[in-house]
């Protein structure tokens, strides 16, 4: 079964390349533009992995991560923070909240693909 990846970012200029990249690598993609939309999709579509931006309108990426991790049904969903917030304290915060990976923008496409592949192949 094709793994499902949810891309959560309000900037379409980053969503488009990411979506293309994931699809080229054999994943099906879903896109959410806000935290609320992301939570709705997680509930409905149960994605295997979330590429999550932090600065989102309304509920932000940190809160989405917190909610996912506190819900036993979603606890095993892989989360990669993909964000322009690159301070050490942000990275530490993301990781303590339960992210599997924290990638700061700008990133290389290969870096994303490698991280996604690795996390989806890892045993839960």
């Amino acid at each position, binding site marked *: 079964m094709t793994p499902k990846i949810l891309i959560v970012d309000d900037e379409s200029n*980053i969503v488009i*390349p990411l979506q293309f990249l994931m699809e080229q690598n054999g994943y099906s993609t879903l896109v959410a533009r806000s935290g609320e939309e992301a939570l709705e999709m997680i509930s409905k579509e149960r994605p295997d992995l979330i590429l999550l931006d932090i600065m989102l309108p309304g509920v932000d990426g940190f809160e989405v991560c917190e909610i996912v991790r506190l819900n036993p049904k979603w606890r095993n969903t892989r989360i990669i923070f993909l964000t322009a917030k*690159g301070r050490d*304290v942000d990275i530490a915060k993301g990781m303590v909240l*339960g992210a599997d990976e924290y990638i700061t923008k700008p*990133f290389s*496409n290969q870096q994303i693909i490698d991280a996604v592949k690795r996390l989806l192949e890892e045993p839960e």
Partner: protein
Amino acid sequence: MKSNNKIWWAISISIGVAAILGLALVVLFWHQSIQQNRPILQEIFARYGHTIVVIGLALIAGLGFILARVFRTAILPMNQLPEEVELIHSVNPAHRIHIKGAYGLMQLVEKINAGAEQYEKMEKSVFDRVQIAKAELEEEKNILAAIMAELPEAVMVCNKDGMIILYNSQAKRYFGEKSNTLQANHPPDVVNDTAADQKGQAHLGIGRSIFGIINENMIRHALGEIRTRLERNEEDVTSAFVVTDRANRLLKAEAAPILNPEKEFSGFIVIFNDITQGLRLEARAEFLLKSFQQRIRHSVASIKSAVEIIQTYPEIDPSREHQLKEIIHTESKSLEQLIQRDSKETFKQTRNQWPLVPVSIPELLEGLQKKANQRLGIHLKIEPCIGRCRVKIDTYAMTLVLLFVLERICAETGEHQFACRFSEDEDFVFLDFSWKGTPVKIDKFRQWESMQLNFMKEEMPLHLKEVLDHHNAEIWPYVDRQDQKKSCLRLYMPTYRPQEQESVRHAAILPASRPEFYDFDLFHQPGQSPDLDKRLLKDLSYTVFDTETTGLDPSGGDAIVSIGALRIVNEHILSEESFDQLVNPQRDIPMSATKIHGIDHAMIKSQPTIDGVLPAFFKYTEETIIVAHNAAFDMRMLQTYEKKTGIRFVNPVLDTLLLSAIVHPAQEDQTLSSIARRLGVSVIDRHTAMGDAMMTAKIFIKMIPLLEKKGIQTLGEAREASKKTYYARMTF
């Protein structure tokens, strides 16, 4: 009892006794005479009885006259003489004795006056020399005052008990009243005063406590830090914190100790700098920098990703390729705009305005553990540290932050048992607080972040987030992934790495001899004691005041039209810190009253009413003993407004009228002018509130040594003696 009354009593008793003795002699003679002689005696009495009675009365009158003369010319002047002599050698060398009396006594008075002449000359010469020395001292004092006034920083010097002994004009600007000396012609800024009073700030003044101006906990915290540093022989012995002034400006306060020659703590200096604008600029620059970095990261990420796709997938669909090229174009333009904006924005160079000092985490936690336990009943278990864990913080503010957060977690979860673990990596120190039970959600924590930082009466005028931002710190709640039942809160703070030798403020050490241009006597004052009665009169702070009124009947509706007051600290009148205010009595001023004090309706119609004046006056009198001449009247006047204003003056009161009766019981006249003349105090501006208050203040200072000679040294003794005087029975 008055001296005159004493004389008449003595004369009457003497005459009475003489009359009884005469009568007794007649009776005795009658009984002892032979029976046969009695008719002869009766005959003599019948014929010459009236003559004998007249002679007897004349003798008694003569005796009375002689006694009265002896009293007036010898005994009474002898009684007055010691008081008069004491006046000369204690407070008024220009005083001369003008007592009429017996020849010998007059000779004595003449000699005493001649001696007084010599004494006055000698004292004048000493006085002149003192004046010259004083003038030199004053000049040096003025130089220091000028230097202090020119300082951009506000400075307050306090003794070890927190009593202010020196402050400069900048300090007055931050913490003083809008108009320190309230001028009669200008109504006071009542709104400002009321606002300050609501804030609980007391007046700034020499001899007042700094704790009334700055939160006592803050000062105590700073002094605790200073003592610890002194004990450890650290180079930097200062403590810094942030306070607000009356206008809510944020001031960086640096407290440095003053040590005596034995290197013991004798007082402290607090230096204030306004950092409001600096902090604002700092926050703005940081915000711009952050958003700038994030925007660049985002745009570069989009461009890079799009370019890499085009390179990696050459056979890409043309429409997709066009879409990617469009992304590259848009993001490049966005970058260009960002660069242009950057050149327009003024990134003002700001140094870190918030006063942060290096401190080790165990030191911070030790204080927190104690306070959390004492004030919240929280048991905080501290786990051992890995690494040195030093951070640069404002310990007072950071402790307040943690207490604020812990208090809310307790309220939210009901937990009182917390564990605290700390560790560090290259750039950050992590402080993890954990508890078993409900976690705090990020959303909830954000609400706390936007709340004003306050913890039980201690507060800062900033939100929790703002204080954290100024520390480059963050707090974050999370749930332990290994143990889902363990809820945590993590505090991130940048690790402190000393880069270079930072400038430090050293302790000021007083020279062994007295400093040349300041009176630092207050350093040696005994500590403030709640038992005021035991304190020496010369050591206390006083508010001397007087009121002018519409009449002399407080309970009959007469009202205050003017209040004048001065403060006495260390036997010095602080005329710079006077209180002089006209009051609109909201009723007519009778012509008879205007004739006395010169205040008419036109002068008071635009003045504030008593409701506006009394709160400011109440603050002015705080922590002082009230002194007035015929205080019963003035206090009764103030009392009539108790119901209306809710203000009650509970300060101990001394009355110069009663004190004068104690020191000079033989003097008949105890009016303010007479006492002033007796004690060599010039009479100026009589019957103005301020003029009378000034005269009363000068009189009171002169009375302190006279009271001491009578064995009255403490406030309690003065009050007790006042009670016993004749005038104390006078009521209004």
